[in-house]
């Protein structure tokens, strides 16, 4: 197959026009791209592979011990106090033994354990059911094991709340702003229609601080990296007998309890 001079010039001309057109089009589009910006993690940040917590219930004796820890968390994270239990928002709260560890209770249990409130929070499961069901990846597991919430993506479908066997998630039925007594200006609030929960204080870890509840607990809560044999949690797990909430469900919760 041969082409004559006229055909050749036609093809050459069309290719030139397409090439110039394509180049200018990409130039226009490229103008909207950011140059590769440079970002870094904070050098002060606490780095872990599998963050976990041990709740030492023997350190919680008075009502104040609980309130101090719960208030510290709820204050810095702008968690509203709505008052109505059907609409309440909670990141860390008190639960009875039979609700926290269903199936473990029995009728001859000591009164002190039967009536002692247990501190419960998101277990940051190693195999989180909430993450599997989230349709937008608004909740996801970070490489350091924290089960995080990205409020920008949450569409409020509440699949995660149905999936979580620990009731660790709360839905904002109403605008939470009017119910926040004192806003922490350093942390955002949430809006109507999103689900929220404990985030293991990812914003404090990023600055090199331990979670607020741990700091306020006077040793009642121990935080550390499960993958580091020298960490505080590993030492406590080695020396004391601990239980977890609903381990039979296979979500591998990472909050451990010392009961007595």
């Amino acid at each position, binding site marked *: 197959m041969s082409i004559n001079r006229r055909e050749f010039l036609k093809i050459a001309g069309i290719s030139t026009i397409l090439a110039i057109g394509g180049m200018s089009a990409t130039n226009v589009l490229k103008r*909207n791209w*950011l140059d590769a*910006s*440079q*970002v*870094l*993690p*904070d050098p002060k*940040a606490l780095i872990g592979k599998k963050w976990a917590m041990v709740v030492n219930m023997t350190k919680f004796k008075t009502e104040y011990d609980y309130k101090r820890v719960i208030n510290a968390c709820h204050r810095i994270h*702008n968690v509203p106090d709505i008052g109505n239990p059907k609409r309440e928002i909670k990141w860390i709260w008190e639960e009875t033994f039979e609700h926290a560890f269903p199936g473990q209770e029995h009728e001859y249990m000591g009164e002190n354990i039967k009536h002692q409130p247990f501190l419960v929070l998101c277990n940051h499961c190693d195999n989180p059911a909430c993450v599997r069901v989230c349709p937008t990846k608004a909740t*996801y597991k*970070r490489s350091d094991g924290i089960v*995080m919430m*990205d*409020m*920008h993506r949450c569409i409020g479908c509440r699949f995660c709340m149905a999936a979580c066997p620990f009731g660790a998630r709360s839905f904002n039925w109403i605008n939470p702003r009017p119910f926040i007594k004192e*806003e922490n*200006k*350093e*942390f*955002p*609030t*949430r*809006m109507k229609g999103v689900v929220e929960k404990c985030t293991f204080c*990812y914003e404090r870890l*990023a600055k090199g601080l331990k979670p607020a509840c741990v700091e306020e607990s006077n040793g009642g809560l121990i935080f550390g990296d499960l993958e580091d044999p020298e960490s505080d949690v590993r030492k406590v797990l080695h020396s004391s007998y601990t239980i977890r909430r609903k381990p039979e469900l296979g979500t591998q919760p990472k909050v451990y309890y010392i009961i007595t």
Partner: protein
Amino acid sequence: MYNGWKIIIGIIIFAALVTAPFLLSGGKVVAKPDPKIDTPEIQKLPENERKCVESKEFMKTEHMKLLNDWRDSVVREGNRIYIGAGGKNYDMSLQNTCMKCHSNKKKFCDECHNYAAVKPYCWDCHIEPKEKET
């Protein structure tokens, strides 16, 4: 023309409706937005530090993309430090970095956003700085 007067009246009404927004506004020109960057926080800074994370021109046209990138970087990847145009490090935070200098949300953000009729939903969650009523 059949029913000519009906058609003509119809055309007149139609023309009046279509041109009404223009005629009623009386050729008034909506004031051009005039965002202000003269907050007390910025005034306090020494002259050579009165710089944003990137150049003014870049921030004017690209701030929304920059903020999107910051959000993904901080929330999803855990990187919180941004190296600005001058090599200076900044904490990537709308509430704690941007608005600490630009404490005048009404004159800085809303001025243009209202003019362009865009409604970013940042402030549904992020707490805006307290401003004196003017």
